[in-house]
């Protein structure tokens, strides 16, 4: 080993911070402090950016995947769901339970041959992937815009068919793409 290793052309000059102390140091200390004070004051002038959540809500986009909704035909009032269980089959979280029953002429619930006698979604398990919506051949189930679903116990998070068919109590503000 003779002499120090020479890095040659590959050496990268490292930009080091200025040395502390001296007149330059004092100037930098004061200058930078004042610059920092100016920065924070400018932030104050800008005003708060907080969205006070329960009172103010950020609007969601139309494709937002919130709580599911079941739909009826608007003209006849019949349920769109025919109880085919394709949503339950598509569900990766296995949170949908469908029990189908036959429609009869005097007891007609849905437009098809059968209807969903029991339709339950366990929202405690749901991962809001939207596969049920994709799987449904009749657009009977869609992902709505509600996202305020917290509750005090798990059994209250199992939504039945009637709950899913109802209009949500409070509408979530909606915005269009690009807004």
């Amino acid at each position, binding site marked *: 080993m003779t002499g120090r290793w020479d890095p040659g052309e590959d050496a990268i000059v490292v930009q080091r911070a200025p040395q502390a102390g001296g007149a330059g140091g004092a100037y930098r200390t004061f200058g930078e402090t004042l610059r*920092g004070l100016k920065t924070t004051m400018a*932030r104050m002038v800008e005003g708060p950016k907080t969205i006070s959540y329960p009172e103010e809500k950020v609007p969601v986009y139309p494709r937002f995947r919130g709580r599911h909704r079941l739909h009826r035909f608007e003209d006849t009032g019949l349920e769109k769901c025919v109880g085919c269980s394709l949503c339950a089959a598509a569900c990766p979280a296995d949170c949908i339970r469908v029990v189908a029953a036959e429609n009869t002429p005097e007891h007609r619930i849905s437009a098809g041959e059968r209807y969903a006698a029991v339709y339950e979604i366990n929202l405690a398990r749901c991962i809001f992937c939207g596969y049920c919506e994709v799987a449904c051949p009749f657009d009977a189930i869609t992902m709505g815009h509600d996202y305020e679903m917290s509750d005090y116990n798990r059994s209250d998070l199992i939504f039945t068919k009637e709950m899913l068919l109802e209009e949500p109590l409070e509408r979530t503000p909606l915005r269009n793409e690009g807004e």
Partner: protein
Amino acid sequence: MTPLLADVGYAEPWWVQLIKSVVLFAIAVQIVPIVLLAERKLLGRFQHRYGPNRVGPFGAAQPLADIIKLATKEDFRPSTSIGFLYALAPVISLITALAAFAILPFGDVANIFGQDVGLYGIDVGIGVLYVFAFGAIAFYGLMLGGWASGSKYSFLGAMRAAAQLISYEVAMGLSLVGVLMTAGTLSLPAIVEAQSGMWYVVPQFVGFLIFLVAGFAETNRAPFDLPEADAELVAGYNTEYGGAKFASYFFAEYVNILVVSGIAVTMFLGGWQLPFIDPPGWVDPFVVFGKIFAFVFLFVWIRATLPRLRYDQLMSFGWKVLLPLATLNALVTAIIVVAVG
């Protein structure tokens, strides 16, 4: 009246003194929640937030809620703590802070209901020394609290507090020497009177800056909040304190901020005096409080801006920069005072 400990510049009958002390205490107690709320609101604004705005209109009842919460908490102490000192330490902090607050001059002698009353606790000839004396005793509150808690973090915080306060007390005292030499008195109301021509912030600008920096360190405020450094020491000397004892420390800290602001206002910003206009006597306290709140704003502004210093930086800055600068300032002022006067 023969003074027991110090010359008294102006003193009223004993019953006026009694009423005044109660009023001053009440004012301190009322001002601290306002400062507390102002700090949290301002800090929020500096960070694009609202700050507390849930309790009462615009969050005005937040300090009240905090106090109720703290006062109704269980009074506990760690099993490793030293009982008597553990309980005594916050009281020392509280008493010294309030005692120092009592001497701040809020106005000249005013005639209230036919009785001449000085708008300050008492005008003693040792004014500034009195403040520093109580500032020195206040260390014991921090140190005893940290030591008596029987916790390593508290102990570290107390050690830091002791080292920091002692280092900066020197610079703080020396920074005021220039003012004292120019004014030729230690009495705070007399110093304010001496500034009727020009506020001392102009001729003593270096002293003002040193006092300000040392004042931040004395009150354990950012960027010198190493004794409390929540990130590394989990609140330092008051880690083991809760409930009303913690509230006492907290209260004392904010009274200390008011005291340092008040001393700065008295020594450098002309106390109750305003430039060019001479308002009637009853305006004086409002002028002083206005100036104090300007300082409180500065405290919060600095806290929102500067990161905490490293410990060695803190020490070297105190001893290698502030102390020589303060000495030089005192020396130059002395030469000028002798040459001019």
